[in-house]
């Protein structure tokens, strides 16, 4: 019995170690293959914005900007919708509607991103262009809405990403809300809370899990490639405008990797991958940290 237990622990431990090993190996390989570019550009790679394959000058700033901007925009649009769906399904929904709604949100997650991209080009982009042409001149003067109404650009990318992120965030948030003990709600009602207040209490109870759900969506938005590259306009520039065509890190890798023959060019593209890897690690680390501090606050409150 003992030896079997040990064997089980060892094999499970090996799987966990393999995960660590894979992540380290990815980081190492990315750094190795981008060494040429790291040596050549150093930290300038992170803060310059020229991307010129002909002259061999590479800076990643517009891609970093575009990735973060589009992901944060997607998060801002998707989070209220996703949480609304989750709350509706878990708290308010009549039982007949529940399974179809769950099925439909999960169906959204199963659609391949190229299909989202095509839908983006043919449905969303014309709609966004219309929206942009309707924007009054007074608003157009603001940096947030400047530029010609092209349709493709940051706004279209943020919207496509938001649609793609919603099923992830809402599914996890729904599961998290399900784990809130019924006694929590009953206690809230017993204290005379309205339905809204009871739901708010439940969401507060589940807040670490809900933040986890939002972060999962953010991670998904950071790495999404195909759908974004089809609607974002692929122009490397740092612009605050929602109407301006921009670019993301994963999109430039997908677009240019196959035709990159020059060693430095290839190395710069791999370094973009490294930058994306580091940023993803940072974002995950930050969200872990956030959840951890929140959990600690709760326990200290309980202790007090």
């Amino acid at each position, binding site marked *: 019995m003992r030896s079997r237990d040990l064997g089980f622990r060892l094999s499970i431990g090996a799987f966990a170690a393999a995960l660590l090993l894979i992540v380290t190996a990815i980081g190492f390989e990315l750094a190795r293959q981008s060494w040429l570019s790291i040596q050549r550009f150093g930290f300038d790679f992170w803060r310059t914005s020229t991307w010129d394959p002909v002259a061999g000058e590479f800076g990643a700033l517009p891609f970093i900007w575009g990735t973060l901007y589009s992901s944060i925009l997607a998060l801002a649009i998707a989070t209220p919708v996703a949480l609304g769906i989750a709350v509706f399904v878990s708290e308010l929904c009549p039982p007949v509607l529940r399974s179809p709604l769950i099925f439909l949100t999960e169906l959204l997650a199963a659609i391949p991103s190229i299909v989202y991209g095509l839908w983006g080009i043919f449905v969303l982009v014309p709609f966004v262009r219309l929206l942009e042409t309707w924007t009054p001149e007074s608003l157009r003067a603001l940096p947030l809405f400047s530029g010609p109404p092209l349709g493709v650009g940051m706004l279209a990318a943020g919207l496509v990403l938001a649609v793609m992120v919603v099923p992830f965030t809402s599914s996890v948030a729904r599961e998290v809300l399900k784990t809130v003990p019924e006694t929590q709600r009953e206690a809230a009602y017993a204290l005379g809370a309205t339905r809204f207040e009871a739901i708010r209490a439940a969401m507060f109870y589940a807040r670490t899990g809900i933040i986890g759900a939002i972060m999962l969506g953010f991670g998904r938005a950071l790495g999404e490639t195909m759908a974004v590259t*089809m609607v974002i306009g692929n122009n490397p520039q740092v612009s605050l405008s929602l109407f301006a065509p921009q670019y993301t890190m994963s999109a430039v890798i997908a677009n240019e990797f196959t035709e990159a*023959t020059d060693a430095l060019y290839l190395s710069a593209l791999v370094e973009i991958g490294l930058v994306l890897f580091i940023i993803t690690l940072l974002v995950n680390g930050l969200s872990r940290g956030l959840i951890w501090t929140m959990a600690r606050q709760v326990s200290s409150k309980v202790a007090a």
Partner: protein
Amino acid sequence: MQTSSLRHLVLAVATVALTACGGGTQQPAATQNASPTIQINGAGATFPYPIYSKWFSEYNTLHPNVRINYQSIGSGGGIRQLLNQTVFFGATDGPMTDEQLKSAPGPILHLPTVLGAVVPVYNVPGITDELKFTGPLLADMYLGRVKKWNDPAIAKLNPGVKLPGTDITIVHRSDGSGTTYIFMDFLSKVSPEFKTTVGVNTSVNWPVGVGGKGNEGVSGLVSQTPGSIGYVELIYALQTKIPFGAVQNPAGEFVKASVDSVTKAAAAAAANMPADFRVSITNAEGAGSYPISSFTWILLYENPTDKAAAKATLDFMHWALTDGEKYAADLGYAPLPDSVVKLEEAALQKIKVS
């Protein structure tokens, strides 16, 4: 060494599997497999993929023992894999640079297979007429210099066309591509300023515009965006029925791209074809030639290690240059002019098969 022994192993396994399958169903198939199956791997350009896959499947029905497997991973990828000797042949839309050739383990031959053309496609509100462009005008548009459709530079070339005052939206490829290479090559030839500020590559630092992924991305953006202009392969414009313009050639004529006008450009260039076939035929001299045309090449080592594959590839190339060229026009490519085929047949002699 390791790769070649691996290839032999794969070959052996494949042959055994094939023989086993054939033998199980009917006797003659097993005897046919007495001549060993030869598997040839290639990778490279996406632009000639439709005709290459047609060729490889046609050739396989004629010669069942020769299987050519082609991965259309892009010209850059094809060159990389050829240099690493992970494939037997490569394919590219832009010739290899001297530097790349120097880094190769052995001399490499460029063999033109067919020709293609890149056309300017546009979407100008209210315009159904065919628009005329010159090279310098296209360069100025792509530099962001010409901003409105009723610019005098456009109006001068298109008398009688009522051009609107719409803003010009430039559309280009966002992915690295041979199509971009050909178009940049042409614009750099006709505009010195374009050459110094942008230059020639499969992707460049675009001064203006939005990027669409692939030919379908560019044509999608153009057909949806009023006032836009982009560039796609001829076959793509024909298939999607998107209007495309005529471009002025060095002889001063405005020529629309067609199989005929592209072959004329090649014939004009054939007169002073360099021995290694690494030639750009954009802006070609000669009456009736379309100026944004290009060869696409298959890349082969002059002295390959796998002699059986070399022999089979050579036979295939002879077939492709003669019978194979007949399939070109239907698929929107221009066949090679006879003069180029003759030069190439001579060049194929350089490949050592024993």
